[in-house]
């Protein structure tokens, strides 16, 4: 009988995994099911550009089912819970889906309500987030009207999706305000709970330099506990207050809610404890997880999800064949960082090696940790690559799951 493979989440990771598995198995060997609560697949990196009118929400959304290969069954239903001891998933309408292998790819959930006052008065009027399509569109309208004052960009706490996105947003805001002639009447502040501009030391230094160059004030170690959306105050747990006229927040992230109703699958924040190199969930040998849903100490980014999908599909096949799993994932991440004025920076790193200067993926590739127009074009081209190569699960020549070291200045710092 055909094996049942059930994939929860039809976003970046779920779609790539489904397409890859469909290619690996004949239809009489395995059935592939994908469950998602809606049929709107958002190209999330595009959200960064919406507030500046550089792209529209409708340009970055496509139907989910159309991204899935023939022979994959799509269930448009919310997941209610997983019963790992019975090897089945319950959907909101009461359907039970039994599985031989379960893949968890339900991403991260935004939890603005966990910060006191944030979703109270002033939410979507003075306090915004661009992490959702609706939020990004509301922010676009606000920026359209903005005529000077104090803009504060804050990420409440790690982990967040695409840890560089709030910095990129800040750089693009600087560019946008200059283009519109209101930069001189605006104070731009970047407030972070980290002790530096970014999580990784070498990249942090480069980014802090850029902030200074662009006259952006950096507030570090601010753990925001409360927002006063009427008085315009972001208040830290330590009592520090940061005033704003307009707040752009990246809210707290947790795992999907159904995981809390699924015994043993999630940690305190709702993320799935997962083996760092095989991507098998700790809870059970026939459960695997990838993307933003995991507790891995890797960036929550599409590039990471892509590298994970390659290892995960291999291991699903091995698991079903009773073979030993490969410890193939090394935490590899790379991302373009938009810096405004049609330039971008590229960083590439993994669990053990921080982002270093050099070129990617080899000495003749894109410049690393350096602003360039080529990187900006790379970022723009990415949407095409996402829909046409990444989601269908095609390998990109020269770009594999392991982090390349050729082309990098490995001695830059230890």
């Amino acid at each position, binding site marked *: 009988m055909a094996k049942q493979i059930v994939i929860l989440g039809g976003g970046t990771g779920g779609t790539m995994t489904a397409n890859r598995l469909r290619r690996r198995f004949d239809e009489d060997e395995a059935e592939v099911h994908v469950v998602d609560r809606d049929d709107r697949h958002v190209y999330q990196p595009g959200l960064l550009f919406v507030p500046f009118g550089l792209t529209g929400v409708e340009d970055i959304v496509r139907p989910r089912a159309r991204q899935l290969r023939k022979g994959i069954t799509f269930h448009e239903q919310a997941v209610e819970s997983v019963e790992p001891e019975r090897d089945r998933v319950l959907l909101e309408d009461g359907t039970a889906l039994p599985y031989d292998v379960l893949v968890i790819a339900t991403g991260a959930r935004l939890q603005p309500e966990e910060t006191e006052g944030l979703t109270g008065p002033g939410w979507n009027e003075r306090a915004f987030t661009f992490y959702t399509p609706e939020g990004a569109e509301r922010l676009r309208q606000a920026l359209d009207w903005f005529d000077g004052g104090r803009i504060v960009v804050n990420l409440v706490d790690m982990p967040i999706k695409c840890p560089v996105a709030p910095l990129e947003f800040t750089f693009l805001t600087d560019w946008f305000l200059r283009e519109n002639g209101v930069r001189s009447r605006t104070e731009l502040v970047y407030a972070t709970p980290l002790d530096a501009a970014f999580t990784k030391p070498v990249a942090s230094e480069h980014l802090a330099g850029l902030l200074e160059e662009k006259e952006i004030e950096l507030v570090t170690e601010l753990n925001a506990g409360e927002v006063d959306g009427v008085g315009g105050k972001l208040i830290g747990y330590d009592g520090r207050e940061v005033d704003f006229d307009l707040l752009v927040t990246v809210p707290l992230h947790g795992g999907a809610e159904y995981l809390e109703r699924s015994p043993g699958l999630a940690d305190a924040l709702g993320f799935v404890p997962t083996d760092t190199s095989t991507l098998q969930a700790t809870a059970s040998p026939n459960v695997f997880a990838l993307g933003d849903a995991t507790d891995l*100490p890797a960036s929550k980014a599409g590039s990471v999800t892509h590298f994970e999908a390659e290892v995960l599909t291999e291991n699903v096949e091995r698991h079903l064949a009773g073979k030993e799993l490969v410890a193939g994932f090394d935490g590899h991440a790379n991302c373009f960082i938009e810096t405004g004025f049609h330039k971008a920076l590229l960083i590439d790193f993994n669990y053990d090696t921080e982002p270093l200067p050099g070129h990617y993926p080899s000495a003749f590739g894109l410049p690393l940790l350096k602003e360039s127009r080529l990187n900006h074009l790379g970022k723009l081209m990415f949407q095409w690559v996402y829909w046409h190569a990444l989601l269908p699960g095609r390998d990109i020549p020269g770009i594999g799951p392991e982090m390349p070291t050729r082309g990098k200045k490995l001695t830059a710092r230890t």
Partner: protein
Amino acid sequence: MATTLIADAPVDVDDEGFLTDPAQWNEAIAEAIARENGIPQLTDRHWLVVRFMRERYLATGMAPSIRALGKESGVPVKELYELFPKGPAKLAAKIGGIPKPKGCI
């Protein structure tokens, strides 16, 4: 990395004063580190957090983040900041004799 004396015991610490070998820790060391960091007396609430951090680290190899600490230790985040001003996770780790929590990525 350097070896130093805390509460008369030789311990290995990193540049910021975090113990690099949790096995060298004892309660007298904890109290000495606390005093040096502006906490004159460790109360039961302090100890609850410090022990929770330490046990978690020894069991999993990772120190919990401030949010996980707030959800799992039974001490809400607001109170954590009152107990350990500035950086509760960092300070509790230091007092608990475990390496500096790696910032998330």
